[in-house]
């Protein structure tokens, strides 16, 4: 059923859902799309969700929708909403079940000419070296005490254990550790679910991808990231906090359900359940969410370690010789306490980014020193048959979207519809014909992640660029993929 609500064109890339569209909206909605993309977005109910988010107490500016928006549960995926810390709310639904699902990019000195002849060997090695797939469990065995260390210190724990370096931390959002984490706020059930899965990719849309650079739009900024030429090989890792994050979200949705009644918060959808940021429930959720975010950063760093191991084994060179350095790691499902200027006033806000990437400009606090002159790298994966983008944050994003931009292609078709379109084995053959070698232990669900199930990420990134909320630096194409 198509969405029939009211939406007004502001310019070629911006559309507003007026505040009076629904009684109870505290701010208008703002959707980043061109008219063709908007037609696709209107085919489902995600714009109603943008309007619903505008009901949440303490929301400032607008309820935002990035161009990769699609129908989520409660919040849309591709949604950004900022609430005042002083009197606003935090909502686990505004972060999602996969807390700190995110992307880590590694660069290499290798060229496509060296990697393509060995791509099958490399992907098969990675497939065996990085646990992936349904209910996958990691190779790391930790007890309760060490689990609490992971939750409290995130990627720092992984560095201490030899899975990464201090340099990796410097180019990770939050340096891979949110300090407000408190393992005491995470249930034993969540820890039990997460403990065996540390160091695993999982399934669904999670993946490892070996890519080659196809285009460089800004050579200076690309060089700052260690990306210097077309054909250069990069490695992208996409996963999150596994069962731990899912359980934290589930636990706190239940707690927030009670909080909604306690604080008499009127909501149009109970999946938007929330509590004041300053309440016990709100503080507890943020402390537990930070633990899950830390777990995800440790998880991606452990996986990066095995990726480095696989490259050194296949190419017979050291990590330094291959130049396997981390470019950046970004979260795209997270809530952060940040300061932003709203109507000329500096406010402390709880910024929810659900299926959206932080995109801070050059010079902003939180951007690593290495990128202080170009802005924070933004990693935007596409589907496994097309391309991905590396971009940077902008001043415009800071002004309009609390420093946020899109996070990926965004689904176009449901998983069921995608499965009806093609068989998984045919998708693998089609990718092979394009020179993309894919491995998965779940061939049937490969069709769910096929290109036709997603929007073209080039269109999504083009809209973000047109609107000025991120700026393209380079475009890559896949050589080999492991689909979890």
């Amino acid at each position, binding site marked *: 059923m198509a969405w029939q609500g009211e939406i007004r064109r502001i310019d070629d890339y911006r559309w507003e859902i007026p505040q009076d569209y629904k009684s109870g909206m505290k701010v208008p909605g703002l959707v980043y799309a061109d008219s063709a993309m908007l037609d696709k977005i209107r085919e489902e109910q995600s714009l109603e969700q943008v309007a619903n988010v505008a009901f949440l107490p303490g929301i400032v500016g607008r309820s935002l929708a990035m161009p990769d928006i699609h129908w989520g*549960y409660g919040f849309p995926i591709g949604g950004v909403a900022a609430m005042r810390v002083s009197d606003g709310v935090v909502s686990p639904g505004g972060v999602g079940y*996969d807390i700190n699902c995110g992307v880590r990019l590694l660069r290499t000195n290798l060229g496509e000419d060296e990697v393509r002849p060995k791509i099958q060997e490399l992907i098969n090695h990675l497939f065996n070296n990085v646990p992936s797939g349904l209910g996958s469990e990691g190779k790391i065995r930790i007890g309760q005490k060490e689990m609490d260390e992971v939750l409290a210190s995130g990627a720092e724990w992984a560095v201490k254990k030899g899975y990464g370096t201090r340099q990796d931390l410097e180019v990770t959002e939050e340096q891979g550790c949110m300090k407000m984490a408190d393992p005491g706020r995470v249930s034993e059930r969540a820890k039990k679910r997460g403990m065996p899965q540390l160091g695993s990719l999982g399934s669904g849309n999670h993946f490892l991808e070996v890519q080659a650079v196809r285009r460089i739009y800004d050579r200076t900024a690309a060089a700052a990231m260690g990306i210097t030429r077309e054909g250069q090989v990069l490695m992208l890792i996409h996963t999150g906090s596994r069962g731990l994050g899912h359980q934290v979200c589930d636990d706190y949705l239940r707690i927030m359900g009670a909080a909604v009644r306690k604080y008499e918060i009127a909501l149009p959808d109970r*999946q938007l359940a929330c509590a004041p940021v300053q309440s016990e429930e709100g503080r507890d959720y943020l402390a537990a969410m930070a633990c899950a975010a830390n777990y995800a950063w440790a998880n991606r760093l452990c996986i990066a370690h095995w990726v480095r191991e696989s490259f050194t084994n296949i190419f017979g060179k050291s990590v330094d010789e291959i130049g396997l350095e981390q470019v950046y790691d970004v979260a795209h499902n997270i809530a952060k306490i940040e300061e932003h200027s709203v109507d000329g006033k500096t406010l402390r806000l709880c910024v929810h980014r659900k299926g959206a990437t932080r995109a801070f400009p050059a010079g902003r606090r939180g951007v690593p020193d290495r990128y202080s002159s170009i802005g924070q790298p933004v990693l935007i994966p596409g589907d496994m048959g097309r391309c991905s983008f590396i971009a940077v944050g902008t001043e415009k994003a800071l002004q309009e979207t609390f420093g946020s931009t899109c996070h990926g292609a965004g689904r176009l078709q449901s998983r069921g519809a995608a499965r009806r379109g093609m068989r998984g084995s045919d998708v693998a053959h089609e990718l092979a014909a394009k020179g993309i070698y894919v491995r998965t232990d779940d061939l049937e669900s490969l069709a769910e992640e096929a290109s036709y199930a997603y929007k073209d990420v080039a269109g999504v990134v083009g809209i973000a660029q047109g609107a000025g909320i991120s700026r393209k630096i380079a475009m890559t194409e896949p050589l080999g993929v492991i689909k979890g």
Partner: protein
Amino acid sequence: MDHTADIGIVAYGNDLVTLFSNAAAGMLSLISKSGGHVYDVTRTISLEAEDNETLLIEWLNELLYIIYTEKLVLHGFDIVIDEGRLTAECAGQKLKQGGLVITREIKAATYHDLEITYKEGIYSAKIIFDI
């Protein structure tokens, strides 16, 4: 039932107990494949919630939790629901036993658009799962 990001089911029942049992069967059909049901492991599940919708989601998420932490799929149920309290005597089998495998990882049953309706003697509930 299709949902762009996720997947959903509509469950029906002549009474709440059948609705809960059918919802669990529907969820299991989405995530597992088996050559035949075996009932050699038993568990008792006790839950409490302020309304039937919450109880339904907690019930499904409890079954998922047991699958992920114990690798145990419960698929035989004797459920009693009384004023927001659910007690279920459950039986099932360990994963990989008798060809039982997980074919899809569900993160959780969600509260999205959830409502248990009662019409013409039939209970129904639409449930969206995050995958």
